[in-house]
């Protein structure tokens, strides 16, 4: 068993307007896992991600990290969230720059990371010159430039077209295989979660907690043929059924 990277225990969170986003969330993450949080919109998945990133604090419960401290974390939002005034190089430089790394010392890491996401030749381009998919790649490169232990992704491909999306899905698995980070991925797409994950956590309606877990016993690096495999189809069916179940629970 790989060591547990993160353990969320009984985590609850309400907002100032009284909305309870999370109620007693239990979630364990092991090193090197690819875990999807799958659920309907507004079920508290993003809130869970923000708590893990340390952008919010839980009202109750606690997070315990391997080694006691929060490791290096990368965050990818639904939007590419690039700085429009800065070049691709400068956008990817940002996490290093905030840690005081000079342009010169950062260059090698930036070039290497841009090569990983296939954007080497766009290093001097500006965000407005790039397509939606390329902007998302820059956003991923920025999240990876510090080589985080944990990569948090909040519906990163939801706004992209199907073709771009499946290409980015495949590339993301390759990135994980070569860099070895743990990924926690929020999505509302059953197919995306089944293709990417080693484990799917299905969220209930708000207040969110995990209603079902589906482990997918397939190798981490998968190609398009995986979409035709029985394992994939079963995972889709199970995830859909679990999702259906939570929705029905809410309606009743």
């Amino acid at each position, binding site marked *: 068993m790989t060591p547990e990277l993160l353990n969320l225990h009984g985590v609850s969170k309400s907002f100032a307007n009284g909305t309870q986003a999370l109620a007693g969330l239990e979630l364990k993450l092991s090193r090197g896992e690819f875990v999807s949080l799958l659920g309907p919109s507004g079920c508290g998945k993003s809130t869970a991600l*923000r708590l893990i*990133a*340390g*952008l919010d604090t839980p009202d109750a419960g606690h997070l315990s990290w391997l080694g006691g401290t929060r490791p290096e*974390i990368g*965050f990818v*939002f639904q*939007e590419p*969230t690039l*700085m*429009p*005034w*800065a070049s691709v190089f400068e956008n990817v430089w*940002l*996490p290093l*720059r*905030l*840690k005081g790394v000079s342009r010169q010392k950062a260059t090698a890491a930036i070039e290497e990371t841009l090569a990983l996401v296939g954007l080497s030749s766009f290093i001097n381009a*500006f*965000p*407005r010159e790039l397509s939606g998919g390329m902007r998302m790649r820059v956003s991923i490169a920025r999240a990876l430039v510090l080589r985080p232990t944990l990569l948090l992704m909040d519906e990163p491909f939801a706004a992209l077209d199907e073709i771009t999306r499946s290409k980015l899905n495949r590339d993301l698995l390759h990135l994980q295989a070569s860099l070895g980070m743990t990924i926690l991925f929020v999505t509302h797409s059953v197919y995306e979660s089944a293709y990417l994950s080693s484990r799917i956590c299905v969220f209930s309606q708000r207040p969110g907690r995990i209603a079902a877990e589906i482990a997918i016993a397939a190798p981490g690096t998968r190609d398009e043929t995986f979409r035709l495999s029985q394992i994939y189809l079963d995972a889709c069916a199970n995830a859909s059924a679990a999702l259906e179940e939570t929705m029905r629970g809410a309606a009743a």
Partner: protein
Amino acid sequence: MKSDRILPLAVFMTLLAGWEGIVRGLGIAPYILPAPSLILSTLAEDWTILSASLWVTLRITAAALVLATVIGVAIAILFAQFRWLERSFLPVAVILQVTPIIAIAPLLLVYLEPGSAVLACAFLVAFFPVLANTALGLGSADPNLRDLFTLYGASAWQQMRFLRLPSALPYFLGGLRIAGGLALIGAIAAEIAAGAAGQGAGLAYRIVEAGYRLNIPRMFASLALISVAGIAIYSALEFISQRALRRWTEASRPKGQASAFTDI
């Protein structure tokens, strides 16, 4: 692009030609309404006096704009860093702004040299749009980017330098364009007040002086120069804006500016 310019130019020329025709056809005396041709020749004849006055007005306007930019941006940054400062001092800035400058000018002329009083008036009206727009821009940074800065442990200073100031740039430039026009208006308003007191050297003073002497063509010539100066200032600032924002997408330009009080 070409035809975009031809049409307004044609309208303008037609208006001038109509004006010229009416003045000549009806034989209107030049001390009532001078024809454009007379205004143009007056401009040429009085060029030595008028160009010196134009230079005075432009210099004061430019100085006011520089002061308004430096002080407006500095205060906006302070407001953004210390919210209690904003809460405490914004009402003062608003009071200064909503009080018509033409009413403040005579008072300033009592306390200050005419030159300094004109500069102070131009500064007072130009300062607020820079402050208001820059303050709005500093608060406009993408919330996700702000989260990202927090995630990477950015200091308040780093947030300001790498996120809030660049985010504010389009807003600041919008404020600057408004301020450019207002600085000229403020300078002219103060010069009129100074001119009424028999002091001053700027273009508006020439208008007041020519009015006393019933030299209507020179009044119009001065007026034409003020218009040209206003257009030149606006065009120059527009050019600077476009150069500065070349890297930005259209979508990232602010959709609405802070409403600046454009009355005086």
